[in-house]
């Protein structure tokens, strides 16, 4: 594979006509990867802008979007999670305060639940969009960001709602927290963290021969995504591969499972009620689940596996998230 000269936007988004933005975004990706590949552990996680690798395989590293920490919170000694009480787990994950950078939706997957006056769910919106993308876009073209908010969150959004006291873009603005959702607010759900995850164990100490024996060094994490990326990258590297994330670098909603969702009359609900709102199939960034308005019932009137849908987390558990990666051998080696 030839050297990458310019990194693409996630899912090839074209949110603005301002050409500078696309250069800026490419630099954001390049800098993030640069910072990690030349860091203290710099090993076989490579920068495709600087290192030429013959790609042998592409693999999307996938994980479940519902936060594992709610089920198994870890800690020393480990705290009792909600392993035996799923409804409580869904409730906790739904009601986590997304205005806090350390909230529970920490699997690079966040959602917002819309309810009607009776408290029934009318829509659930799932996102995997990066804070850095909106900051970079806002810096280049604030109106483009406003336009996205108005299209996807509410026509009532004003530019003034989106900035903090110093005029900079505010990740925690009301339309991305209490009154809607456009992108991640959790600080760890960042590109930097994702790249860091892949890099931090590409040159591990102590060395391990397989994933079973790798357990003690990797044992502390409480998410699904961290070990998913760590173990897979580590496994590829110890098998002599060079690894990086595939362009366009992004975290995507890869798939969802519609089976088991039933209408009030017991018939299966159509899969078409899941709609990709941003991104494309396989690289979705914003997905919504909603019953068409032509029906006289709402999401909260449906069942999933025989249980009424009371929490967005029930649907979040059906969603698979992923990050495409490539592995190969260094040219000339």
């Amino acid at each position, binding site marked *: 594979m030839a050297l990458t000269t310019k990194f693409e936007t996630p899912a090839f988004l074209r949110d603005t006509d301002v050409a500078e933005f696309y250069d800026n975004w490419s630099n954001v990706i390049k800098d993030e990867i640069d910072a990690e590949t030349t860091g203290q552990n710099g090993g076989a996680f490579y920068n495709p802008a600087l290192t030429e690798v013959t790609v042998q395989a592409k693999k999307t590293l996938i994980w479940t979007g519902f936060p594992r920490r709610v089920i198994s919170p870890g800690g020393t000694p480990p705290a009792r999670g909600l392993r035996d009480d*799923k409804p409580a787990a869904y409730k906790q994950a739904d009601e986590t305060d997304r205005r806090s950078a350390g909230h529970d939706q920490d699997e690079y997957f966040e959602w917002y639940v819309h309810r009607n006056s009776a408290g029934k769910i009318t829509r659930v919106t799932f996102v995997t969009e990066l804070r850095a993308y909106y900051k970079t876009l806002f810096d280049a073209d604030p109106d483009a960001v406003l336009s996205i908010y108005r299209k996807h969150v509410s026509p009532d959004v004003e530019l003034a709602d989106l900035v903090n006291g110093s005029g900079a873009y505010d990740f925690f603005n009301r339309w991305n927290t209490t009154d809607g959702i456009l992108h991640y607010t959790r600080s760890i759900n960042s590109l930097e963290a994702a790249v860091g995850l892949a890099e931090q164990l590409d040159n591990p100490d102590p060395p391990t021969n397989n994933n079973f024996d790798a357990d003690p060094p990797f044992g502390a994490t409480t998410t699904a995504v961290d070990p*998913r990326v760590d173990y897979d990258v580590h496994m590829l590297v110890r098998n002599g591969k060079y690894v990086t994330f595939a362009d366009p670098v992004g975290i995507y909603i890869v798939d969802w499972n519609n089976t*088991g969702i039933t209408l009030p009359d017991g018939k299966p609900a159509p899969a078409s009620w899941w709609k990709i709102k941003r991104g494309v199939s396989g690289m979705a960034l914003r997905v919504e689940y909603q019953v068409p308005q032509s029906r006289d019932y709402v999401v909260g009137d449906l069942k999933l596996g025989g249980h009424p849908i009371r929490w967005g987390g029930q649907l979040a558990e059906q969603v*698979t998230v992923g990050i495409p990666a490539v592995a190969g051998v260094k040219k000339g080696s």
Partner: protein
Amino acid sequence: MAKKKKKKALKKKTAKKTSKKSPRKKSSTKKSTGKKSRLREMSFAASSIPKVSSLVKTLAPFSDYETRALEGIDISPESMPAPKDVPGGENEPVYSDKDQADIQGNIIPGFNKGMQEFLFFRFGKRGGARKFLRWILPYISTMEEVLKFRQLFRERRLKLGRGKAFLSSTNVNVAFSRNGIALLAGRKEAAAFGDASFQVGLAERSTYLGDPTARNSKGSAANWDVGGPDNEADMIVIVASDCHEHLEELTALTRKQAECNGMELLFRQSGRTLPGQLRGHEHFGFKDGISQPGIRGKLSDAPGDYITPRFMADDDHRRLYFAKPGQLLVWPGQFLLGEPRQSLDQFIKEDPHRQENFPDWAKRGSYLVVRRLNQDVPAFWEFAGKCAKQLGLDPTDFASRLVGRWPSGAPLLRSPDSENESLGADEFANNHFLFDDDTEAAGLKEIPGYPGDNFPQAKADFLASVCPHFAHIRKVNPRDSVTDLGKPDDNLARMILRRGIPFGEAIVGKKKVTRKEAEEERGLMFLCYCTSIEDQFEFLQRRWSNSATQPNLGGHDPIIGQNGGPGRERFIDFPLPGGESTRISIGDDFVMPTGGGYFFAPTISAIRDALAK
């Protein structure tokens, strides 16, 4: 003639349906894998019975398989020198004789009988049901009883070599649905079971599991032989025996007693291991039940007296997590309520928090999942035959890629290019392999009569070019692989104790198969025990087998996976030489649910004191 026309029309309709691809899924996988398709995409509808002559040709080689000396029960831990505890091992719970006499024996260690009868009852009045329980209580086989018989059998076999042991026992176990418990113990007690799937029952969870929903489908819960919305059983009685006469006699007696106590027999299913050389194989022809978890725990304080015998050498660090090579050790709370259970994050450790979401009397009981699964053997082998021809492979080779093992049970990872019956029969070698890394030879204790595992060790297959991501054994048991839930530690918490047995006459291995025989019902009575139906059985079926993307992208499990969406079309990304793959559509289900239920198997004392009183 009219029938013929109808069949033809159906075939045409199905073919049209299966050629229609799901744009979302197709595009998703193509983009994410980036693999070019060397062959054109293949799509087969195998809904019609193939020509019997061609079927026989495909299935005939199965008659040549031989069983080998080292299967299951022949190796006796009692024959090994100086049993002792695993050095540095975990502090595992001890189950005294009294404890063992309270736990039902099909949970641990499992009946393992070649003849079993499954009786699905509906209760009449509470008094009658309780009276029946008091009658059947002394017949219920405990863990202690089954273990004792197993030991006796081993000793006899050791004396006789491979001669027939002339020992038999007859076992009975029981389990109850939520409604059954509500009738016997009251609604409050039934509601105290925290397993949400058990609360609503299998019929209600059927669509969630991806089962067919079309009104005219035999697989739709509404059409099930038992366990559908209108014919759910309150209780299941399992009778198992080595002796046909005893089996029939005790089954008849059970039926009579039930009838006398106002209970209705909703359905009876006989299970029989396949005959002759196919003993231990399922109807498609593949050896089944190889990869059962080992259960942590001891039978006494005596050194080395483990529930699951330990064969790893003291100087092999994998003694801490394998009972024998490849057999992962799992804490008993995954199968017995309230016992030390598997940590989700610490591979060999127990979860410091035990399960508590059940009534007190239910401790050490287990949820029992029963699924009557029809197997369409002609459709499976027609599919395998057609795909194999197009790929230039032998049908058995292709079918083995779908399973992940050769028919003998030999894993592809240890014999990538051809069947190896000796490997398939070697219980110390046939389960010893990793997926992601090279597998190191296992250090074993000295085992009298065992020459050692001299088969080539498995090589890393992280790209899944040997054992594809869709292969059944890779789907339901990812072993060392990371999954959508993260660390492989979590995989242990998904494992179940399988206690299935085939039903119906076998056609694999027969030199002659008539059309009538080909069309007869056959399949697997799938039974498993676990302590969370949702997180164990349902998880394996729905989250991994039914998914084309989980635990890794690559297609659906072609054996038991189901696509519950419209058209039910599944696919596999079949690996080709050179790292490429081709997408193959599967138009039909080879396995179809036709009955079952979610039950709870209590302890003997719980039946006596909480349900029968």
